């Protein structure tokens, strides 16, 4: 390949005592897709933020096409031909697609050059097969479309190198294929791409070369990802071998949660229609489906956030009369929400507060309306130790923790009270292998203890690995249920599209 498009040499960046990057070297050639791998907190985002001008490195140089450049801000980066799609999008929701593309682009004599923008947009569509209705407001776009818009924004500004920070974390599996096709086409036309992920199968399918970061340093480089095993790469990432958890044979008991013809109304997203299902003690029920087929409503009903319009629900034999989080909790329900940052935790308050939040009114943490700060602290400290939650202590701001540690904290707060039923949504989304493995092991341990668990997820591999039975949701209904033994990715995939009905009810 030709001379590198971008070269980073000896990049070091510290935040206080944390060395987020240490002497990192990395280069990307034109037409190359470079995978940047690493566990959460390995320093991937920091490194890319240095390249994009958001952070000034403590040491090191950046070369663009062989020439050293100073990148002090994103304008410098864009001028050097570097575009970045952040983990969290930077779009103006009320403006249209075209207006978002034109933000910050000087028009003719102070006027916005709409015609020029449209022409350029059409060109990008032709070149890379990326298109969006230019007049739609961003708020009307799906997450996948917003991501496409971010990529188009970078191309619009003439990016020669495109950085994508965990782009697949927010996508449904079906959307991932579309993204990969677009990225391959761009690389085919000479664009350099840095693709950040910790999903090894994706990295192996897409990238030409990989750099693996661990604790801020380069832990290894992989020259032929397609022919390197996931296990070998996982070992580079974690520094030790990863063994899949062993799952004991299932011995399900009586049903601990039963939904009987539940329907919902008046909810954002697809409502439930006549959903009946059950989960038994000592059993894991997986709920598969393309996102947006009622999973959100199902989780909300079971966790007490959304009272159903019709139907009944029983927990350990007791019929639920009041659909409210506290009442369901009292019946023995544990819950882990899909969105840990907005629904699960209070990021601005101490971690301990989030960990006791659902049970603050119980005798464990208060008496006659007075808090017991010592008990709250002790509980948090105990769980931090038991779940190996990496943080400075229980009084640290919850928002300062990484995703994996937050998820452990949420798991700890529910499991500490021995739920009979556990409902979890997307339990390992955004987590690295080590953290995901930890969560899986906890689920299996709870299963062994007789807890009935419902796992709502999009990652079919994960569902197949965990579940004793898998139900598929399609347009607000249960399209069918397969036993763990008969379920395969292919069968589930078919059912998820609404085809191939199975007659067996859940």
């Amino acid at each position, binding site marked *: 390949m030709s001379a590198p498009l971008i070269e980073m040499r000896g990049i070091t960046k510290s*935040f206080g005592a944390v060395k987020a990057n240490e002497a990192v070297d990395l280069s990307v050639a034109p037409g190359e897709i470079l995978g940047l791998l690493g566990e959460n907190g390995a320093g991937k985002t920091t490194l890319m933020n240095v390249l994009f001008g958001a*952070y*000034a*490195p403590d040491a090191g140089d950046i070369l663009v096409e062989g020439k050293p450049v*100073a990148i*002090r*801000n994103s304008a410098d980066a864009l001028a050097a031909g570097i575009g970045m799609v952040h983990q969290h999008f930077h779009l103006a929701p009320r403006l249209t697609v075209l207006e978002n593309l034109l933000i910050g682009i000087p028009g003719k004599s102070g006027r916005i050059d709409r015609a020029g923008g449209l022409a350029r947009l059409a060109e990008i569509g032709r070149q890379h097969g990326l298109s969006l209705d230019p007049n739609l407001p961003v708020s009307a776009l799906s997450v996948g479309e917003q991501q496409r818009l971010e990529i188009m924004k970078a191309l619009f500004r003439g990016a020669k190198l495109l950085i994508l920070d965990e782009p697949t974390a927010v996508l449904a599996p079906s959307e991932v294929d579309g993204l990969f096709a677009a990225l391959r086409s761009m690389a085919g036309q000479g664009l350099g791409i840095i693709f950040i992920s910790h999903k090894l199968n994706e990295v192996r399918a897409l990238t030409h070369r990989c750099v693996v970061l661990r604790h801020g340093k380069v832990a290894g480089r992989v020259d032929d990802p397609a022919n390197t095993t996931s296990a070998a790469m996982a070992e580079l990432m974690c520094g030790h071998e990863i063994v899949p958890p062993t799952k004991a044979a299932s011995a399900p008991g009586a049903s601990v949660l039963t939904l009987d013809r539940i329907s919902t109304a008046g909810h954002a997203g697809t409502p439930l229609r006549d959903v009946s299902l059950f989960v038994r003690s000592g059993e894991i029920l997986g709920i598969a489906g393309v996102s947006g087929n009622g999973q959100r409503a199902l989780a909300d009903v079971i*966790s007490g*956030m959304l009272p159903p319009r019709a139907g009944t629900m029983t927990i350990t034999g007791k019929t639920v009369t009041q659909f*409210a*989080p*506290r009442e369901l*909790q009292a019946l023995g329900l544990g*819950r882990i*929400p899909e969105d840990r940052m*907005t*629904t*699960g*935790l*209070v*990021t*601005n*308050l101490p971690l301990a*507060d*989030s960990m006791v*939040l*659902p049970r*603050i*009114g119980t005798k464990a943490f*208060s008496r006659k*309306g*007075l*808090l017991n*700060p010592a008990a709250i602290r002790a509980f948090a400290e105990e769980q931090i130790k038991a779940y190996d939650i990496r943080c400075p202590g229980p009084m*640290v*701001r919850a928002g*300062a923790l990484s995703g994996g540690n937050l998820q452990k904290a949420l798991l700890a707060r529910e499991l500490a009270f021995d739920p009979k039923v556990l409902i979890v949504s997307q339990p390992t989304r955004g987590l690295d292998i080590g953290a995901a493995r930890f969560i899986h092991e906890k689920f299996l341990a709870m299963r062994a203890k007789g807890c009935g668990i419902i796992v709502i997820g999009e990652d079919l591999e994960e569902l197949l690995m965990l579940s004793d039975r898998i139900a598929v949701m399609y347009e607000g209904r249960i399209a069918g249920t397969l036993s763990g033994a008969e379920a395969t990715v292919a069968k589930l995939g078919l059912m998820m599209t609404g085809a191939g009905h199975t007659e067996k009810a859940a």
Partner: protein
Amino acid sequence: MFRLEARSSTPAWFNLALPLIAIVATLILCSGLIAVAGANIVEAYGVMLSASLGDSYAITETLVRAAPMIFTGLAVAIAFRAKFWNIGAEGQLLAGAVASCFVGAIPMPGYLAMLLMAVAGAAAGALVALVPATLRIKFKVDDVVSSLLLNSVIYYALMALIEGPWKDSFSGYPISPPIEDSANFPVLIEGTRLHLGVIVALIAAPLCWFLIARTTLGFRIRVTGENPEAARYGGINVQRVLISTALLSGALAGLAGAGEVGGVHFQVMSDISPGYGYSGIVVAMLARLNPLGVVPAAVFLAAVMTGAEAMSRATGVPAFLSDVIQGTALLAMLVALLFTAYRVRRVGASA
């Protein structure tokens, strides 16, 4: 070149340092105005300081002024903790003043009268605060706007009362009839105006701190304010928390009114509050919504108010400077708060 970088944590000493930095910045900024008014800056601030805190009498006067602002500051601090944007402490104070004056004018034993005045004042304030809270919960009406506008409604209702049916028939002025002498709050130090209400205000601050920091209601208020969705998911009845917060906040502001009637004015007139409700917002922000911080913040503003009058007499600088200092202090504090979330980083030219 400088740039702002997000902080992951805020050092603890910031909580103390920020208000002090904001106050110093305010005094420096306002010294420009003193210079424009043609006075000597050091002399002007000197007069201000000695007139407000220079001797024991001045200190009692400052405390008497601070008392209503401690109450309104607590009212705002607690409301803002729950993100109930109560800008209506002024109206709640006025309602509390009217109700307590009404009760105080009824002949009954002194201490019973004082107690009932406090209860009536608190209840009236709470009732007024309930309006924006209910509108927000039931109809999603913006609480900033509704609570702010309600101030004018109550002010003009009060004017209508004292110009009309409630006009003091004895004096003929647009003021309410005075409360019974026996209902006047006792003075604690002979020869000063330091009344019982001031002590109640000083006790209310640690009580409010305890409520926020050590009770389940306080916990629920904090969590609801920071993340209502997580609160709801965690089993907190968010609407009930908002209502409780509004009642509490309004009651505290109402107590400010009761204190002014029982301890300072003994009747209601149109200018019974020189904007103590609005000052409460400045106080709460300077205190960083910490009830314990409300006391020093209120004393600071009270000192500026009493000091400004003396300064005006001695140097000719208009007493309006006190309002400017208040406004500037709020702005300075808001700017200072930026630094709890961001740090300034020097970016070397070589980078």
